């Protein structure tokens, strides 16, 4: 009974994240990569979820993809943004940053 009174508004807006990541994981084309980048940008810049925050992992995934696309300066900034937003990610994200900086 109590559960039925709980808020159902999503914490975050995801847009077409699931489909875009799945498609890109199946087919690594430039077109799908750009599509995925656009999804990350929408999630990061147009959050309408109840928390008003970027979901866990999104800065990191976006930053990692930017690094892989040959834009390490911007990519590393987004990876560091993940740590700022979610300090519990520091151990893991710092490890990724270290690997990318080598």
């Amino acid at each position, binding site marked *: 009974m*109590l559960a039925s009174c709980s*808020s159902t508004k*999503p914490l975050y807006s995801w847009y077409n994240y699931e489909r875009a*990541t*799945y498609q890109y*994981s199946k087919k690594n084309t430039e077109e799908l990569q750009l599509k995925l980048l656009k999804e990350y940008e929408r999630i990061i810049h147009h959050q309408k979820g109840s928390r008003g925050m970027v979901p866990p*992992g999104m800065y*990191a995934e976006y930053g990692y993809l930017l690094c892989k696309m040959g834009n390490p300066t911007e990519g590393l900034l987004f990876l560091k943004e993940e740590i700022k937003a979610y300090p519990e990610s520091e151990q*893991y994200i710092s490890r990724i940053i270290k690997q990318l900086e080598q």
Partner: protein
Amino acid sequence: MLLFCALLPFSAYAQNTRGEQYPEMYNEKPTSIVVMPSINTTNFVEAKEYFYTTLYQPLVEKGYYVFSPYLTMEMFQTESAYDSERFLDGDLSQFRHVLGADAVMFTIIKTWSRNSLSGYLTVGVEFILRSTLTGKTLYSREGTVSVNTSVQSTGGGLFGALVDLAATAISTATTDKIVAGRKCTAYVLSDFPAGRYSPEFEKDKEYKAKENHFKETVR
């Protein structure tokens, strides 16, 4: 018979609260979760990926920090951690030391069957969340979920029924299994205690818990 009927509503309300059913979740209050690649005991090889990637989003929506499966996947593959079976009953402290994860989520896909005519995809699955600190099981649910993937036309009559039947067969054959996996996961996790980023955090302790073993149909 009358007595049975009178007792029925009472028994429906005599179930545990989430706090009683998952006491360790409320004791340890994990913040971060790493999702392990699913353990697939079926012959349907692809089932593994359908579950692995669909767990992340619903767990995040429950209020947890979930390590991105797309980032951890690479690490699991390079560090031979892709076989989750090895960790199911084993020591999980390395996930705390390397990732900083409070808990590890395992999924075991036990059955996977599709009925092209009825449009039902039936999946037998078990979810287990274990602590990296104490090794204790914090949450577990097991059961069978049937996802109805049938197509309903707006037209009626015999022709409408035939169109529905044909469309259902096509839909089931080409069904976006990611959607089916997500529906199944969403059902199982509907009883998952909320994490610290959710407004329900700790408030849901008094909510009535669903059964640990379930058999359910979702659309």
